């Protein structure tokens, strides 16, 4: 009995001290020293897959979250808690659900008040559940699988849209674009990654596209990582669909687009991505402008009418980084959490959860409707349609903030 007790203590001690060392080593900002002087810091876990197959997205996410933390702290911290600063506890999910779970355990024993992040659907599914065991408020930054918020976990909130909403919007917009151009496209091929995100999305599209008048020629899954898309592209070439719909993460998306360009395979109407990992990424567009030309995407996008969003974009680009969706979703999520902390007036987990559930936060940078959480999902969240046109990314829908008209069907090569 006493032995178990001791070893448990020792393990927790080792965990938390290891975490402190890790946090110090990874340069957890300069804040903690000042914080301890004030004695009232709120620890917030920032969990991202900063290594492994999703490393780029994870690093972008961490950047967005850290920028928000810096801003909040520079503006005087959480005022209702006597100006308590937010102390970020950084974690690496290693691009796997197991890695994410291990970090949640560590963050919990480090005494965080809430966690923001997760990025990939399969990671979020696992980490939210682990956090729920400790009644630890968890804000999903991206993770689009709808199952994340439909399992009845009271601690789990998602500010961005789930893929149910995204698929619905994507389909409605595709029909609108196609109808307006005189219905040049009828056949579709879907290429998706085979984990929770891609497979789930493919399933949704398979159910909804036929109702929209499209015929699905084939649905091709592939693992993450995949380093050869020759076979996939050959299949696309053989089937010759009017539209190709890719749904995968950044590296695979880039490789698929480049292999299509390499093999001179070009669908008649469009490459129309739904949550394409790179399709609306400034990094992809800048590095491979030819492969990216005219690619459409229905994805997360910032509000170009919002001066705060434009200021953030400028700040990120000044650091030599690309302004990708991971950045502004994490930035907005951390601001949302800070607002909840402000209203909760304490670092108590239950109080924060209640404050999040009743949030009507409006100070974010997304083109969303009013914030309102139902079962953890923000009802105002919505995607936008973009198209890569001559080395830049333009919003083509919704019309309220569109910056260009869609180029559809593809002009002859």
């Amino acid at each position, binding site marked *: 009995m006493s032995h178990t007790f001791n070893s448990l203590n020792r393990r927790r001690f080792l965990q938390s001290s290891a975490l402190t060392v890790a946090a110090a080593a990874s340069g957890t900002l300069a804040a903690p020293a000042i914080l301890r002087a004030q004695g009232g810091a709120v620890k917030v876990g920032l969990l991202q897959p900063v290594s492994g197959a999703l490393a780029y997205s994870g690093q972008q996410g961490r950047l967005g979250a850290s920028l928000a933390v810096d801003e909040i702290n520079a503006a005087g911290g959480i005022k209702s808690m006597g100006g308590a600063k937010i102390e970020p506890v950084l974690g690496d999910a290693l691009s796997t659900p197991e890695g994410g779970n291990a970090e949640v355990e560590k963050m919990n024993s480090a005494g965080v008040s809430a966690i923001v992040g997760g990025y990939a659907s399969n990671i979020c599914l696992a980490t939210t559940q682990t956090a729920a065991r400790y009644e630890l408020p968890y804000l999903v930054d991206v993770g689009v699988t709808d199952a994340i918020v439909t399992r009845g976990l009271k601690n789990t909130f998602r500010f961005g849209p789930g893929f149910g909403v995204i698929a619905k919007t994507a389909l409605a917009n595709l029909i609108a674009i196609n109808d307006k151009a005189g219905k040049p496209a009828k056949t579709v091929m879907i290429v998706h990654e085979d984990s929770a995100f891609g497979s789930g999305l493919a399933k949704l599209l398979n159910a909804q596209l036929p109702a929209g008048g499209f015929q699905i020629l084939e649905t091709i899954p592939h*693992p993450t990582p995949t380093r050869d898309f020759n*076979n996939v592209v*050959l299949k696309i070439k053989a089937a010759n669909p009017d539209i190709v719909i890719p749904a995968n993460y950044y590296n695979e998306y880039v490789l698929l687009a480049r292999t299509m360009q390499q093999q001179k395979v070009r669908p008649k109407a469009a490459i129309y991505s739904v949550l394409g990992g790179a399709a609306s990424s400034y990094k992809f567009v800048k590095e491979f402008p030819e492969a990216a030309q005219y690619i459409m995407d229905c994805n997360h996008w910032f509000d170009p009418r919002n001066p705060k969003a434009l200021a953030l974009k400028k700040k990120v680009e000044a650091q030599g980084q690309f302004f990708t969706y991971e950045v502004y979703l994490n930035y907005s999520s951390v601001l949302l959490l800070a607002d909840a902390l402000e209203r909760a007036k304490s670092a108590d987990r239950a109080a924060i959860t209640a404050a999040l559930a009743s949030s009507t936060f409006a100070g974010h940078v997304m083109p969303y409707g009013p914030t309102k959480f139902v079962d953890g999902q923000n009802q105002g969240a919505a995607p936008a349609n973009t198209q890569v046109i001559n080395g830049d990314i333009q919003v083509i829908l919704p019309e309220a903030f569109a910056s260009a008209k869609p180029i559809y069907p593809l002009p002859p090569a």
Partner: protein
Amino acid sequence: MQLTILLPAILNGLLTGAVYALIALGLTLVYGVLHIINFAHGAMLTAALFAAFFMHKLLGVDPYIAVFFLAPAFFALGYALQRFVIGPAAHGIDSNILLVTLGLSIVIENAMLHFFRADTRTIDVAYAFDVVPIAGAYLSVPRLVGFAVAVLVALLLSMLLTMTDTGKAIRAVAKEKLGAELCGIDVAHVYAVTFGLGAACVAVAACLLIPTYYVNPHVGNAFVLIAFTVVVLGGMGSIPGALIGGLFVGVVESLCGLYLGESLGQIGIFLMFILVLLFRPSGLLGARA
């Protein structure tokens, strides 16, 4: 399925298969002479991939130039490993060698995991997406280079074994160790040279792979499983067997990928592995029954 995509798929398979063959060459050479299965082969491939990666990343050396440094370096490394670690630790007992190489692979892999972490890394070279149109297919330049080099290395190895004194010594040791020793052949040296050659093959394969492939501390495992299949398929210790086996496996993988999907593509290889073990345990060109 139409011919227009079947043909490119087969050609792509042949190109990938050549690199499999190259990795299997090292394995089969070591088996043919040392009569041991080198479990550290995959870990050495991973190490070579990391070496090629860092030479490009830190020193800006193109992988195709790096091969001229890495192949001799890995030859020396392989030589030293056999001469000073595997040989002495094995005491001439085959099961010991098996365990020593397995241990080595674990040590190498975990050392890399410690130093380089589990990240999947890639390099970006200008020619990675260059293509040559052949017979209606657009074949990737790095893969064509890989194919040519793999065939060349197989040819050189065959010539080395049949035409040089070192090759004769290797074959003599393979046939009759005691007899060779009585004729004045330094058996320990020949063993080490053979192991070094196997390691050099791996270094060449790594330089051919890295422009279009990725590296992480576990990447070698995927290849070593395929390489074992190739060696068994082609016949243990047979160089032409490894080449033909490699090309065959490449085509099977490509066609399975095409018909069964990318997620299931490798199933075909291992089904074939089982079938070969069942019906032709000595392999296609295997000499020993």
